[in-house]
């Protein structure tokens, strides 16, 4: 096996006396879809926050592309190509849909003030490039007709799609989705299913997701990691997880 794209080793996160995450380890191989599941309050989002740098883990290591990430602030981690969405969608609500995608490409943009103020050709072509990439993704997630609408006025499912598009315009290597199917209707969930597969197969993005929708998880995941009360419970392919007694116990309780 080659070196995994993302390697989390013995991650611990304490809040005062509470161990929200206890010795969680997981590997994400390049080109895979890995799902993190567990009952409510198991610490899935905390793991996400530790990996993406929004929390500083109390102990443990996060290695991404062979480099340690666990000491870096969130925005520097994102610049390495690891971006995420949020459980409770975080769009720039008063900006237009298109602006949301443009601002996401801030790091690729021509940020030289003078070039921008003088509207030099180098600046113009760079802006055009950002706009074209935004348009491509808006078309992919079926939001092109709403390009000039304020993001906050979109329907819930559209906002979820926009958040994924906003991550994708940054051209990430690893995309982390925190409950992407929450609040979606069955049709939208199916579309999401397809989108996620396409992200992996066509755009060569590796995905790590937190999800509650078991049908979605079992259908698309290459690997599943189960955690319960902050501690790792099981790891394996969907088939292995479905047959795991511990997992069934954690979800359904003992007989």
């Amino acid at each position, binding site marked *: 096996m080659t070196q995994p794209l993302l390697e989390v080793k013995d991650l611990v996160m304490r809040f005062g006396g509470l161990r929200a995450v206890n010795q969680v380890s997981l590997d994400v191989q390049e080109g895979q879809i890995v799902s993190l599941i567990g009952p409510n309050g198991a610490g899935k989002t905390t793991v996400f926050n530790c990996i993406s740098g929004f929390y500083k883990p109390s102990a443990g290591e996060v290695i991404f592309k062979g480099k340690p990430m666990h000491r870096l602030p969130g925005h520097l981690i*994102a610049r390495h190509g690891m971006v995420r969405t949020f459980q409770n969608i975080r769009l720039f609500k008063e900006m237009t849909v298109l602006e949301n995608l443009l601002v996401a490409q801030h790091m690729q943009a021509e940020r030289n003030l003078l070039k921008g103020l003088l509207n030099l050709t180098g600046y113009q072509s760079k802006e055009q490039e950002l706009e074209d990439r935004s*348009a491509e*993704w808006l078309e992919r997630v079926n939001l092109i007709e709403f390009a000039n609408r304020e993001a906050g006025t979109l329907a819930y499912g559209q906002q979820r799609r926009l958040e994924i598009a906003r991550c994708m315009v*940054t051209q990430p290597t690893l995309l982390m989705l925190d409950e992407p199917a929450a609040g979606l209707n069955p049709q939208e969930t199916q579309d999401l299913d397809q989108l996620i597969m396409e992200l992996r197969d066509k755009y060569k993005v590796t995905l790590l997701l937190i999800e509650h929708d078991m049908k979605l998880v079992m259908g698309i995941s290459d690997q599943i990691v189960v955690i319960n009360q902050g501690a790792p419970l099981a790891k394996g392919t969907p088939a292995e997880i479905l047959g795991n007694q511990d997992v069934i116990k954690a979800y359904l309780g003992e007989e």
Partner: protein
Amino acid sequence: MPKKPLFANLTSAFFAAGLTLFLGASVMGLRLNSEGITLGVELASTQTFVELGLAGLLVFLFQLFRDHLPKLSSNTSAKLAIPSFLRTDKQQRLWLMLTLGALLLFPFTTGRSNIDLATLVLIYIMLAIGLNIVVGLAGLLDLGYVGFYAVGAYTYGLLYTYFGFSFWQALPVAGLFAAITGWLLGYPVLRLRGDYLAIVTLGFGEIIRLLLNNLTELTGGPNGVSRIPKPTLFGLEFSRRGDNTFHEFFGIAYDPVHRVIFLYILALLLVILSIYVVRRLIRMPIGRAWEALREDEIACRSLGMSPTNIKLSAFTIGATFAGFAGAFFATRQSFISPESFAFIESAIILAIVVLGGMGSQLGVVLAAIAMVLLPELAREFNEYRMLLFGLMMVLMMIWRPQGLLPAKRPHRELKTTNAEVK
């Protein structure tokens, strides 16, 4: 909306009327009289009390029936429709040119005091445009903005006093110093948000004023800096006597109004330049990042943007405009003292930004005109100026909480290719 019963507001109407009577009676109903060397309190005339009673009754009736009065305007969806003569780009450009022409001709058609007043308006527009970056775009509530204004003004004042800098030499330095001050203030307040940020910036503005007041040896303390020279036009001075004066060069009679007009045009050019620069900034990556920061700091970080750099850039660039405005203020007044940079100035500039509509350029310009002109026009009501100021704010918040002209989102046409995404 379901109709409320007629007397649903009875309690609040009584309360409002009672409050009016109480406040009115304490402010206007008692009078201090000097009897020899002591002061005596006596009641005002009966007429005052009758008027007070009527005022109370009016408030009572208004509060009682306010739900049944015809609505002034709906305050959520209030959006000004663009008038028909301003629809196309061509028409807009035409009107812009006409307005500019009118603004350039204006000083030649009116008297000295009006030009002076217009110059003052322009200074406030420049200040408000700068503060709009920090408050309106980046969403960082800054109550100490006047501090940067003071830095700009004193930079010119002191550079002239100690090193004999001219206005044109000092102007870029003033902008630079204000920018550095903005950057320095940015650092300690990086972690603060909302109310806490407002308090610290408020303190910062006061620190600058107190420093200027107490560094007597350097700044002249409360006596300020005086005899700051006026700017020159390519070396031509606007004075009666001198080696190289404007009126001699052009062979016209000396008229002190020339200088006033020159200052006005200079301010106008500075304002136009500021508006242009900020207009570009808003559409540039940095402007988008400011707005994104205002909307959601966490999302910004998740996309690789550094909130630190974005905040610092907003403070720095915002302060630069105040620095330019300050240097111009110094040259216009010829005299500056710490008193000119009190907190009330920050409050007025902030009021302009809020009244105009956060982030909206044209709104800010209109609000600056209103905020500076109204008190001047209402000079006879001098005693009640602050009262009118407060009344205007309250009415604005009821009628248009989003400001005179709320910022419009830029509209961009996309090429819909339908091409396969690569």
